[in-house]
């Protein structure tokens, strides 16, 4: 194991690691542009210069391997002077359009300019004008702002493997660009916006939506597939403006897919259910009278808490539970191994944990067709779900139907009781990804209209039935379901799925 000395402090590092990698991990911040922990180092921006004992000139730390007895200095007048020169050089052709640049406020170049700037530019000539254009359906480039760090190019080459982007032109005219007729349209394309250290690459869906310093960021989990990528939601005026991946090496690394990122539009769709027809009391009354003849169909996108409560409800009214889920497309895996799953529901693994491996609705629909079940409760959290014909027929056949859904559907128009459900961004809860990792969903904003979270109305029904005493928060239900666990222990990065409470505490309804 090589031993190195960073600013006088000794460190032991694995052989062959690059210096900047070690420094960042150690907590010694060295300014950089082209280096990204998820990409191969390239060493072109020259910002991460440090002084090492076995070289007379300053070395770029992102490319410098750690060797034994290496002594590194990251501060000092020499290094500061070098950084100032690099900053002045980078700013030669960078336009001063921060006021209208969407990156302003979260821009590495802007931050570094404030911290390490030279102050005055000695460049008096005209700046090079480069073009502004769409790179693909999702990303737009402002060529003027590009500092040719090649982060995006290395991303498409090494991470995605599609390699749409390359550096075109030479010298000060260089910018990242696509080849003619090869748009940047891979399933992970929007990640180039996050890794761009300047405002050159801009997410078209977020363009001009909000200045980032007015926004609030909340850490949550993506629900668009069973991978459960960790994300940070950017909130502005009570709306989710964008999702960005949050580093979690056990789940998604640094990235997320475009589909999950853009899956926020439907939250403010006019087709959202906003008004209730009937309520928890009606559901409780009906189910009490029909105990033993009740079917419950749940989506595998429901949170663990909702599933646990549905299980309590099924026990209380002696009903059968079935599941509806959504599989789409084929599994896509990037060059680096980042996968987009076909299972488009967030919590199938959680359902399997609570209800066993057999997650189908056939048991319920068969019961309806045979006349054993006369009452059906459908609780769905999957947007725009194409209902299987079997379920659709069953809903027509039952004598009483209650639907809790996020979007309007033919089921909700037909139902006797309709409860508008809060979508994933409007409720607290936990979901289990395909690898069995419990992760948190955080309430980002208010639910539209009269929409309530399924966990709360299910608890109300249970209270009316006498199977629960009070309505508690989602975390309260989670604690009930997993004794000894709470949201604090799940944390921001998720944790392994704990043991479920063996005894589901619910009483059968006394008639």
């Amino acid at each position, binding site marked *: 194991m090589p031993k190195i000395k960073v600013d006088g402090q000794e460190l032991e590092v694995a052989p062959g690691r690059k210096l900047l990698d070690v420094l960042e991990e150690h907590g010694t911040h060295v300014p950089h542009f082209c280096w990204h922990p998820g990409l191969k180092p390239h060493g072109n921006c020259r910002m991460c210069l440090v002084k090492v004992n076995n070289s007379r000139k300053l070395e770029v730390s992102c490319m410098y391997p750690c060797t034994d007895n290496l002594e590194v200095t990251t501060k000092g007048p020499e290094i500061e002077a070098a950084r100032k020169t690099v900053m002045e050089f980078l700013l030669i052709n960078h336009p001063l*359009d921060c*006021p*209208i640049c969407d990156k302003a406020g979260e821009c590495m170049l802007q931050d570094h300019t404030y911290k390490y700037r030279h102050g005055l530019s000695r460049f008096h000539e005209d700046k090079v004008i480069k073009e*502004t254009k769409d790179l693909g359906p999702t990303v737009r480039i402002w060529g003027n702002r590009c500092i040719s760090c090649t982060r995006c190019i290395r991303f498409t080459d090494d991470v995605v493997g599609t390699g749409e982007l390359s550096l075109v032109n030479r010298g000060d005219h260089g910018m990242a660009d696509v080849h003619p007729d090869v748009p940047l349209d891979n399933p992970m394309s929007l990640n180039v916006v996050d890794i761009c250290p300047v405002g050159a690459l801009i997410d078209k869906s977020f*363009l*001009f939506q909000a*200045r980032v*310093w*007015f926004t609030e960021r909340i850490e949550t989990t993506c629900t668009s597939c069973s991978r459960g990528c960790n994300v940070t939601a950017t909130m502005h005026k009570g709306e989710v403006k964008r999702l960005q991946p949050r580093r979690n090496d056990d789940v998604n690394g640094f990235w997320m897919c475009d589909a999950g990122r853009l899956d926020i539009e439907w939250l403010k769709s006019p087709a959202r259910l906003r008004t209730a027809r009937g309520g928890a009391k009606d559901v409780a009354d009906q189910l009490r009278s029909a105990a033993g003849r009740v079917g419950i169909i749940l989506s595998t996108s429901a949170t663990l808490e909702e599933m646990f409560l549905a299980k309590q409800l099924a026990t209380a009214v002696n009903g059968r539970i079935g599941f509806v889920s959504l599989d789409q497309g084929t599994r896509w895996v990037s060059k680096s191994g980042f996968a987009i799953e076909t299972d488009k529901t967030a919590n199938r693994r959680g359902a399997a944990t609570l209800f066993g491996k057999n997650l189908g609705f056939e048991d319920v629909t068969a019961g309806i067709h045979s006349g054993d079940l006369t009452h059906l409760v459908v609780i769905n959290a999957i947007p725009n779900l194409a209902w299987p014909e079997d379920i659709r027929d069953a809903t027509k056949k039952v004598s009483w139907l209650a639907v809790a859904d996020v979007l309007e559907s033919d089921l909700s128009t037909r139902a006797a009781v309709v409860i508008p459900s809060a979508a994933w961004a409007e409720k607290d809860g936990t979901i289990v990804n395909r690898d069995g990792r419990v992760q948190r969903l955080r309430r980002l904003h208010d639910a539209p209209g009269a929409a309530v979270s399924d966990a709360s109305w299910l608890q109300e029904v249970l209270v009316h039935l006498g199977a629960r005493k009070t309505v508690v928060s989602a975390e309260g239900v989670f604690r009930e379901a997993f004794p000894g666990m709470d949201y604090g222990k799940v944390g921001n990065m998720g944790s392994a799925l704990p043991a479920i409470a063996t005894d589901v505490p619910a009483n059968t309804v006394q008639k």
Partner: protein
Amino acid sequence: MDAHNPHADAHKDAHALVAHAPPGLSWLARASIAAYLPSIAAGMAKTLEWMFRPAVTLRYPEQQYKPRKGYRGEHRLKKDEQGRPKCVACFMCATACPAECITIVAEPAPWPDRDKVPAKFEIDMLKCIYCGMCEEACPCDAIELTETFTQIATTRKEKIYDKERLLKN
């Protein structure tokens, strides 16, 4: 005596108040209203003098007030030579605004010479404190405070000026 007793200090202060009177005469000075009378007479003379001075009141609706240069009144959105709003919706004014009265919604520009224009630009004149920070923050010299100080409205809604209203100012 306890030096930290505040009441003891207060007592001392009370003595200090009358200490400026000549020693031995303080009770007389306090007892005599003659000490008050000259000052009162001087005050009466002053007020009498003022009664015959001309009034400085501006009789407002008939006489109009002309604000001085640099007066900070209602806002105006400026236009360029082609009559387009100069504003590029950079939100600098909204950021600088201490009263948070500026609401901007941006949209892509229809003209090639800029990226961004305001789709909506509203100032809540009732929240505004007329500090002029927006004017200072503007990188495009697109907003300025005019000398208009009469602002009449019958509803709160009227006091939220939209882009058209601000361009008209």
